[in-house]
């Protein structure tokens, strides 16, 4: 068996995983919680998820508090224990300064989980002189933000994590030996996303007599995979020092943002034009300097009343690519819309009532390096598309952005509900899902003319009275004739389908109940009629 290991080590130079450094801050959840709750460092503390202790500080551990203890047991060991609630969001938030400190030493890092940072060590080690110097600098940098960290280096991610816990620098090629004597239980410290599965696996391995990682590594990998599944295979790779996962480096590619305070507050559109131009130029210059492009631009403004106005535009459809002139127009139109009460009303009910603006900001989102933009399935926008976008842009310049609309199909039952209209280029998600079943929606074909507002008509039955529909959808008489709104002309009904009831949103603020009837008329036309609150109306024409 030892020959096998030696053979593996001999073969390693070609297949050895890359050198990885791990920076581990012990007991991070407790440290983060203590920092957030401002618990003095000398008090024993533990983080509790409502059922069990998930992490304990060194002070608490010294007094016997362990992971997995119940609250009562922990307090029994250590009566002065400060119990803090678990909060993964807080852990991640508080860890950001530590990650940033590590980033001052090495440019690309991966935050495996709050408290654990992985980074490729080979290049960084060469840059800083040696791996030892790199480790020192990392520890120093993190110490400056007030955390004690341990750094470990080894071949492969899993071994590096275990080396960090042991505060060890494993020389290249020694990883298998370093791992061989360690308990399989340490696998639990390596995993970032499978705690429960790994705990079960470790339990099973120990019961089967596989107690050290060396034992596990000596088993043939195929058999391990067959017996223990993918997690077993993963554990085997870690145990044999072959855990060659490239670190998923996080590139510091922040959203590009520019903002300006408006003092005195801006009330008139003319005043905003210059601000818009300046901001657009600034954003453009920043992005050009950084060599990035963006998929969306978010325009934010704050009013004197403290309301925040936000609108997002796609740069590919609305701006046709980013240029200062287009961006300026877009910002100006948006401010125009916000400052002009009438346009704000047309823009949508979600817009708060505008007031004088005190702050204006532009934020480029979906920032990518230039040249890395995601093309369409069939390639980039073609000439015809660009030409059309330019035409649309020109018309929006003539009429205002709200006058040119783009339509999307959305879910809904009524004809008008099923179309989602937004100003061209604006990013606004549909209100209703289209893939929901929507029982009771009107059958296709849809009417080709949908009146902007229903027109009151009169539908008279064979008895000469208005057709009534009762609660059981029985009609008082067969429809015979439609009287048009002028009150003098009429057309005979030759056939009809329905009535179909649609009762919607009766639980909300905008209840709607109507009964729909398709009717063919003597002159060959077909119409969609609706009975709402006892009155017939012409909704649409199948013309």
């Amino acid at each position, binding site marked *: 068996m030892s020959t096998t290991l030696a053979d593996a080590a001999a073969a390693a130079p070609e297949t050895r995983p890359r050198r990885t450094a791990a920076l581990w801050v012990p007991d991070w959840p407790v440290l983060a919680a203590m920092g957030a709750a401002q618990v003095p460092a000398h008090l024993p503390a533990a983080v509790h998820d409502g059922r069990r202790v998930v992490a304990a500080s060194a002070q608490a551990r010294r007094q016997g508090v362990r992971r997995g203890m119940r609250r009562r047991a922990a307090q029994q060991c250590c009566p002065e224990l400060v119990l803090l609630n678990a909060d993964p969001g807080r852990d991640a938030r508080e860890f950001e300064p530590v990650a940033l400190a590590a980033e001052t030493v090495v440019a690309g890092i991966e935050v495996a989980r709050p408290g654990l940072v992985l980074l490729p060590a080979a290049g960084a080690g060469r840059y800083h002189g040696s791996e030892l110097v790199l480790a020192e600098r990392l520890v120093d940098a993190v110490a400056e933000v007030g955390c004690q960290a341990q750094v470990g280096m080894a071949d492969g991610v899993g071994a590096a994590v275990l080396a960090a816990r042991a505060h060890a620098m494993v020389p290249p090629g020694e990883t298998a030996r370093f791992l061989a004597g360690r308990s399989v239980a340490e696998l639990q410290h390596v995993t970032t996303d499978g705690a429960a599965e790994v705990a079960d696996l470790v339990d099973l391995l120990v019961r089967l007599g596989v107690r050290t990682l060396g034992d596990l590594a000596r088993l043939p990998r195929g058999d391990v995979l067959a017996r223990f599944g993918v997690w077993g295979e993963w554990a085997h790779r870690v145990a044999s020092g072959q855990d060659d996962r490239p670190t998923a480096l996080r590139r510091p590619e922040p959203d590009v943002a520019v903002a300006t305070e408006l003092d005195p507050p801006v009330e008139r559109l003319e005043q905003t034009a210059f601000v818009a131009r300046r901001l657009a130029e600034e954003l453009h210059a920043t992005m050009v300097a950084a060599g990035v492009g963006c998929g969306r631009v978010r325009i934010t403004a704050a009013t004197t009343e403290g309301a925040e106005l936000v609108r997002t535009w796609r740069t590919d459809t609305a701006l046709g690519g980013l240029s200062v002139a287009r961006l300026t127009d877009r910002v100006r139109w948006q401010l125009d819309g916000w400052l002009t009460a009438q346009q704000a009303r047309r823009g949508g009910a979600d817009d708060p009532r505008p007031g004088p603006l005190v702050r204006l900001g532009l934020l480029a989102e979906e920032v990518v390096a230039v040249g890395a933009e995601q093309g369409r399935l069939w390639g980039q926008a073609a000439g*015809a598309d660009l030409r059309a*976008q*330019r035409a649309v842009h020109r018309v929006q310049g003539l009429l205002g952005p709200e*006058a*040119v609309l783009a339509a999307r199909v959305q879910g809904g039952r009524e004809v008008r509900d099923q179309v989602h209209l937004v100003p061209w280029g604006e990013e606004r998600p549909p209100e209703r899902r289209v893939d929901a*079943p929507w029982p009771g929606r009107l059958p296709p074909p849809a009417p080709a003319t949908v009146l902007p507002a229903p027109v009151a008509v009169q539908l008279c039955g064979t008895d000469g009275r208005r057709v009534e529909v009762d609660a059981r959808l029985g009609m008082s008489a067969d429809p015979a004739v439609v009287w048009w709104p002028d009150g003098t002309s009429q057309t005979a009904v030759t056939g009809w*389908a329905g009535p179909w009831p649609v009762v919607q949103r009766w639980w909300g603020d905008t209840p709607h109940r109507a009964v729909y009837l398709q009717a063919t008329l003597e002159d060959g036309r077909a119409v969609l009629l609706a009975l709402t609150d006892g009155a017939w109306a012409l909704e649409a024409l*199948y013309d």
Partner: protein
Amino acid sequence: MSAVAVPGRPVALDRAAVARAVLARAEERTGTARRPWGDRGDVVRGPVRDHGVRSLPVDPTLDALLPSGLERGTTLTVAGSTSLLLAMLARASADGAWVAVVGLPAVGLLAAHQLGLSLERLVLVPDAGPDGPRVLAAMVDGVDAVVVGDVALTDVDRRKLSARARERSAVLLSTGPWPGASVVLTAQGSRWSGVGRGEGRLRTRVLTVAREGRGAAGRGWHGQVPLPGVGAARGARLLGLDGRRAG
């Protein structure tokens, strides 16, 4: 350039041709020029059924009505049926053409979708206001087919727009009268099927259309067109509405 040299031909001529082709492709891609129609050496001036560069394709069910498709640069009038108008544009829109609808606030967009139009390339200007002529001119410059609804235009504006459409190889479709339209389609009545006296639903219909106008495309014709056509069936299938009322 030896790769393009053809034996028996002077190399210089080929290089010039290649250069011209590259320039044309670049112009087409960047959108600075639209592909001129009709005058290209590589386009065979074939029979009128050539739906290539010179015209936008239409659904096969409309072949009798528009034997040469929607010819680029022409102006058509479609009166009396919005469905017919949308059905005429469905195939071209699905094939990548851009469509603008100006001054038709009542157009049924769900119907357009079900007929097969691509809403991604459909630009709506419900109310062009007093700037109608300028809006239409901008649209004609950039969009393949422009539908003109209720827009305040004088006859001079209309003639100018027709000339502009001819120059820019766009198709103008008007729902109202238009002097000088090459094709005038008038829906004269329809017969619906599928609906009874209190049962069924509107399913299909046959639309009686009269065609007149100028030239070969506008030769007098009177006939019946089935609507909704193939495109609608496709749209309905995509929506999962295979003829049943949902629910």
